[in-house]
């Protein structure tokens, strides 16, 4: 969920304006990777054999960047009210019961079991790819873990007002914890570990109103599903790129993400005010754009990871965006016209601008000069974002609530 927001789940930092996105993106370059690793290493007792240079870093080394995986918090009192069965007659109890049963089934109860292939594969990964993999595991773990924290707390807080919804949140936090734990075990193959307890305290939490949590987490779960399944199916066809066994787990794993998304779909249907007016349409487009752009900018800065597993980064991203958008059109009242070639052209221009901004950050100029040099690029990026936002949208929505033609043929 919020988990989706790492490399694997790239969303994060959605919700903010483009300029911030850009300026922060520079910190995602390789030097930051080692920073994070040193940070994690310094806060655990795990041997840090792969990083000999960690001397000057300490716990403060967490870099909060706009594109980094995010921790979320929300207005829990409002959540309690939204799901109070006495106050909210729209709650489709049967739908939530059906979801609860699906989560209780626990399809992946015995799925996340490691074997000795992991360590052996990790030892084979050397050179720059090793660092890239570590960063991939870290971002993914952080993202899954952030989902765990939010869902766990929601499960706790909603227990009294809506036990069914509360239990679903708890079961989703079970899934996220399982995913995060599995990724963290993956890090141990690289002789590292994320200190999640420390992370819990040291990370900044981004506050989103419940309605924004719904949009953001829905998208991040669904985009997470499409990312995992695309990587899985690609590697199944091209096993020569199967460099680390964790990808083999993605097929079952991502069904969890998909189900989590379904739950947010049901939550939004229970709150039609978040789906049925012009404001909802504007927010829907805004969140779609934020999520897609964040992923695109993130991934185009990490092409070596995707190329390392045999994918063309931009093609991979476009596929994921188009499929996520199609899925999202089943619930959001409006989505972006991402299949219009102009949308991809805009994304490419944004990626180019983003690279320039990052390049400025790497020069030896003093900060003031750097900032001055960035201004025109930031303006260009904002203008691209705005233009993409204003592209003619596509009306959409669930057939259960949208004013879809009653003549709709199935």
């Amino acid at each position, binding site marked *: 969920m919020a988990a989706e927001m790492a490399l694997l789940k790239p969303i994060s930092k959605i919700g903010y304006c483009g300029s911030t996105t850009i300026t922060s993106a520079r910190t995602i370059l390789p030097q930051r990777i080692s920073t994070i690793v040193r940070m994690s290493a310094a806060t655990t007792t*795990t041997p840090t054999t792969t990083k000999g240079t960690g001397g000057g870093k300490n716990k403060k080394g967490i870099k909060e960047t706009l594109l980094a995986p995010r921790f979320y*918090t929300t207005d829990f009192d409002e959540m309690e009210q939204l799901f109070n069965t006495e106050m909210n007659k729209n709650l489709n109890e049967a739908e939530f019961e059906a979801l609860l049963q699906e989560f*209780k089934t626990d399809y992946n109860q015995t799925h996340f079991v*490691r074997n000795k292939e992991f360590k052996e594969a990790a030892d084979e990964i050397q050179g720059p790819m090793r660092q890239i993999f570590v960063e991939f595991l870290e971002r993914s773990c952080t993202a899954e873990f952030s989902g*765990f924290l939010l869902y766990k707390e929601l499960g706790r807080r909603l227990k009294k007002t809506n036990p069914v919804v509360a239990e679903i949140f708890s079961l989703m936090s*079970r899934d996220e914890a399982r995913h995060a734990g*599995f990724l963290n075990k993956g890090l141990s193959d690289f002789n590292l570990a994320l200190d999640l307890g420390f992370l819990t305290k040291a990370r900044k939490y981004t506050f989103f109103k419940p309605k924004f949590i719904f949009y953001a987490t829905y998208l991040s779960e669904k985009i997470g599903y499409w990312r995992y399944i695309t990587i899985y199916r690609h590697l199944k066809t091209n096993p020569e790129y199967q460099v680390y066994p964790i990808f083999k787990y993605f097929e079952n794993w991502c069904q969890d993400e*998909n189900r989590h998304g379904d739950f947010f779909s049901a939550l939004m249907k229970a709150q039609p005010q978040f789906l049925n007016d012009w404001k909802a349409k504007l927010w829907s487009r805004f969140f779609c754009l934020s999520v897609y752009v964040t992923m695109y900018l993130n991934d185009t800065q990490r092409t070596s990871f995707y190329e390392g597993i045999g994918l063309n980064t931009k093609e991979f991203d476009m596929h994921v965006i188009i499929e996520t958008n199609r899925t999202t059109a089943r619930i959001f009242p409006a989505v972006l016209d991402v299949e219009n070639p102009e949308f991809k052209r805009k994304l490419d221009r944004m990626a180019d601008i983003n690279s320039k901004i990052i390049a400025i950050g790497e020069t030896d100029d003093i900060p003031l000069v750097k900032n001055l040099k960035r201004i025109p690029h930031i303006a260009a990026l904002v203008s691209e974002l705005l233009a993409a936002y204003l592209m003619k949208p596509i009306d959409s929505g669930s*057939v259960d609530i949208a004013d879809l033609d009653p003549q709709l043929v199935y």
Partner: protein
Amino acid sequence: MSLMKSLGASAVVNVPAAAVTTTQLHHGTHSFPFLSLPQHLPKLNTTTSISWKTTTPVRTAVAAINSSDTVEKETESKKEYHFVVANAKFMLDEEEHFQEQLFERVRLFKERNMEQDFWLVIEPKFLDKFPNITKRLKRPAVALVSTNGTWIKFMKLRLDRVLLDSFEAESMEEALASNPCNIEFEKPSNWVAPYPKYESGWWESLLPPIPQTQQA
């Protein structure tokens, strides 16, 4: 916020220390009670599970439906079948996650030694009883049919562009009868995914078993 922190901190201590597998983080919610019940029981029983403290509203609802539907009198012979239906292209060709989901469920049922209670039915005969559905349906149509109504409700949520209903039948053969029909889809003209499409015909293992009479 402080609650969240302390919660997170205590909850994750386990992670780096996890020695065996990741299953330590499961928070003890391993119940899957409904699934362990015999699948042939009427709906009423399948939802009445041990640890479902919170299910009263639905349980009552299901009970009400069932009692109005003669379950009490005819438990022996009649069973309720639930379905979602849409055109074949949507069900079998366009929604690839649907295949993954069905295969995931097949895997689960095998792992837990449960008898399969869901099938794909191409051009189901039972549709004749639902003129309100058929007038909105492109043909050929494909239905996902199950005796587990709760799961079908979930599948409706997932697939969205499907119509849901239920009916009673004396036997599985009657419930799952279909009109023979050749299903073929055109290959997509521009397939841009970095992987091949799932093979056509993936659904064959999910079609109802052929009744003895027809085999002969």
